[in-house]
């Protein structure tokens, strides 16, 4: 079975470490915040200028001046700090954020990522995605493995305009967890009940399959 959005978020949450500063993109990456293991302390960075994002407010505490990068009303947790957009991207570009999780349309074996522009469709903009992929060392891309028509999104070369070149090393799809190394995807884990054959069939870029590909674990270690 392909992973649900929640299961994908749950798997990525396993990559969190105590004391991490983490930037979560819009969409499935946002859900990762719901699965941070109990007892682990993580500070969420929101690129509009908030480090230490807390839960959504209540009707009583809602505040128009307190939003996240998805423009949703949020709160600040204890220990949070608030700053300008230049400061926010200084910490992103300067490599101070420990983990960045974001979505994509395509990734390829060179670690390229395309996530912001589909030619022929209206382009709304890249927001902070280009800065995030250029600045972070530790990035996990969350995406579906193939399109609804079955077209692979893990390619030998991205077909869409790039968000960043050579910056992606880890990808979690609804079928598998893969790493990118030396011009190939390496199949590290498969979703429960998904066969290696299905993953091979749906991966267009070069894929290295080790002898043993374990099933994904979800519970925190």
């Amino acid at each position: 079975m392909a992973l649900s959005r929640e299961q994908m978020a749950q798997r990525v949450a396993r990559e969190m470490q105590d004391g991490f500063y983490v930037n979560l993109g819009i969409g499935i990456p946002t859900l990762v915040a719901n699965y941070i293991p109990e007892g682990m302390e993580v500070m969420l960075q929101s690129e509009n200028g908030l480090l230490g994002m807390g839960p959504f407010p209540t009707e009583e505490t809602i505040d128009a001046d307190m939003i996240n990068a998805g423009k949703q009303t949020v709160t600040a947790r204890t220990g949070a700090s608030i700053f300008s957009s230049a400061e926010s991207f200084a910490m992103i570009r300067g490599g101070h954020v420990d983990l960045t999780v974001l979505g994509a349309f395509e990734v390829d074996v060179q670690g390229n990522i395309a996530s912001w522009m589909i030619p022929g469709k209206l382009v709304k903009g890249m927001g902070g995605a280009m800065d995030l992929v250029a600045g972070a060392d530790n990035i996990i891309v969350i995406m579906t493995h193939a399109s609804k028509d079955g077209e692979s999104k893990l390619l030998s070369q991205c077909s869409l305009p790039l968000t960043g070149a050579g910056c992606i090393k880890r990808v979690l799809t609804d079928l598998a967890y893969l790493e990118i190394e030396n011009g190939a995807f390496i199949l590290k884990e498969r979703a429960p009940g998904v066969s290696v054959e299905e993953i091979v069939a749906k991966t267009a870029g070069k894929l290295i399959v080790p002898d043993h590909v374990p099933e994904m674990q979800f519970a925190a270690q």
Partner: protein
Amino acid sequence: MAGFDKRVSSYEEALAGLEDGMTVIAGGFGLCGIPENLIAEIKRKGTRDLTVVSNNCGVDGFGLGVLLTDRQISKVVASYVGENKLFEEQLLKGEIEVTLTPQGTLAEKMRAGGAGIPAFFTATGVGTPVAEGKEVREFNGRKYLMEESITGDFAIVKGWKADHFGNVIYRHTAQNFNPLAATAGKITVVEVEEIVEPGELDPAQIHTPGIYVDRIICGTFEKRIEQRTVRK
């Protein structure tokens, strides 16, 4: 105005000197921390052919979106321009020109512009459409793009509290691009929720020192929320 008293008494006075064809840098992220009354005054004034530098371009009928109705904007520099039908329409018809700029690069362009730095190098956008036509230099084995900074004829800024010296503090995440925009205008106009007595603001807590600010005005704000989200 006398000495360091930068207060003006009307929005008309706040934007005196703003003319057709000028570049306006605006603070705000989405609809958060936008100088909504200064934008409304630009609409009332009818200034046209403006280049607007702002992270976003408002929504239909609010924020910078209100300047689209009478086609007062000819060019936008922004990182994200969604949530605005009229904008899309004008873009598709070629009535408005857009330079999409990565958010961090846009912030740094304002910061550098205000700090007298004409250009800087960043890894953001290397190998992407953003790099087209830009100089690429290698430092320590990594490629970087040269990005030129931005200054404006006017900067329009939304603060929380200010004193008459033009010292400004911002409230929560309504800070965003505002302190950067404030540094990058030839004339910087700040509208705030409250003008406090001299000495009331702690000098060590000032976000925007008064040296950057030319005019201060106190307004009332709608503060529209774009994505009202509450805990379940």
